[in-house]
């Protein structure tokens, strides 16, 4: 009788501590704890010297100043060697003029990509899919995005999520669909009947007691 082999892959989830790591990168050996106290976006790409990834690295470089203003650092990752990363980064600068300002993990052992659930065997057993992990200053995972190998990421959405998370943390509010900085925010719904009644008298813009908005 043939033995059934089923591999269980554990994926970190929103609200979990970001998995610990120590990794060789294009900026030296970095640990998760090196980023403590600031926001961090860890993202994976399938491979160096590939077309969609190159467009994404240029796009990440374009939004890097906007991320820095928000206190966010970027950390790339793929299952490529450090030599390959260095050669690719130099090639991107040579051919496009964009100097990649953030480090990239050379995860040949797949240790980090496995810990973060970045390899999806249904897509590829050897390459990481396009993952984005947004990690807060306490090193808690606050957002996870997955994109297939064939779809490049949307940088506006990544910036929008960072803005939304930082606004939520600073003001104890939530953000509605398609929210942009400056738009009205959503007040968390009341937990009791009394609070629901009071909510309607507080001068917010309410559709009903459970959906009230305010300007910040």
């Amino acid at each position, binding site marked *: 009788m043939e033995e059934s082999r089923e591999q269980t892959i554990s994926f970190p989830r929103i609200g979990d501590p970001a998995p610990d790591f120590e990794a060789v990168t294009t*900026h*030296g*050996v*970095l*640990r998760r*704890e*090196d*980023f403590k*106290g*600031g926001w961090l976006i860890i993202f994976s790409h399938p491979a160096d010297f590939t077309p969609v990834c190159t467009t994404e690295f240029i796009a990440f470089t374009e939004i890097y100043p906007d991320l820095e203003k928000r206190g966010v*650092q970027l950390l790339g990752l793929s299952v490529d060697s450090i030599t390959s990363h260095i050669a690719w980064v130099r090639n991107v600068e040579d051919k496009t003029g964009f100097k990649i300002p953030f480090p990239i993990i050379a995860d040949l052992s797949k240790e980090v990509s496995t810990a973060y659930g970045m390899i999806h065997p249904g897509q590829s057993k050897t390459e990481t899919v396009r993952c984005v992990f947004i990690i807060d200053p306490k090193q808690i995972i606050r957002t996870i995005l997955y994109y297939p190998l064939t779809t490049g990421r949307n940088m506006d959405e990544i910036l929008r999520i960072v803005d939304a998370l930082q606004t939520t943390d600073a003001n104890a509010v939530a953000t509605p669909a398609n929210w942009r900085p400056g738009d009205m925010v959503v007040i968390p719904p009341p937990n009791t009947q009394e609070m629901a009644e009071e909510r309607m008298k507080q001068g917010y813009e309410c559709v009903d007691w459970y959906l009230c908005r305010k300007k910040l």
Partner: protein
Amino acid sequence: MPCISPDGKPTETGIKMLKALQGGIGAPEAVAQTTGLPLFRVRSGLRELAQAGMVEPKNGDYVIASRGAELIGE
């Protein structure tokens, strides 16, 4: 290695960090502010300089070691 070259000497980034510690004990946050380097690079770089004996860790802060001081001509 961002702070130590293969020949064992500090890189430009390493020298920047060593110079930032010339005044005495320094926290990584203070070194980052003085050098303008991102905090994660400073934390990683100071760890590397410590492994090379150029700085010494002191309760989470760092102080320049005699080897580090010699290399920047102090």
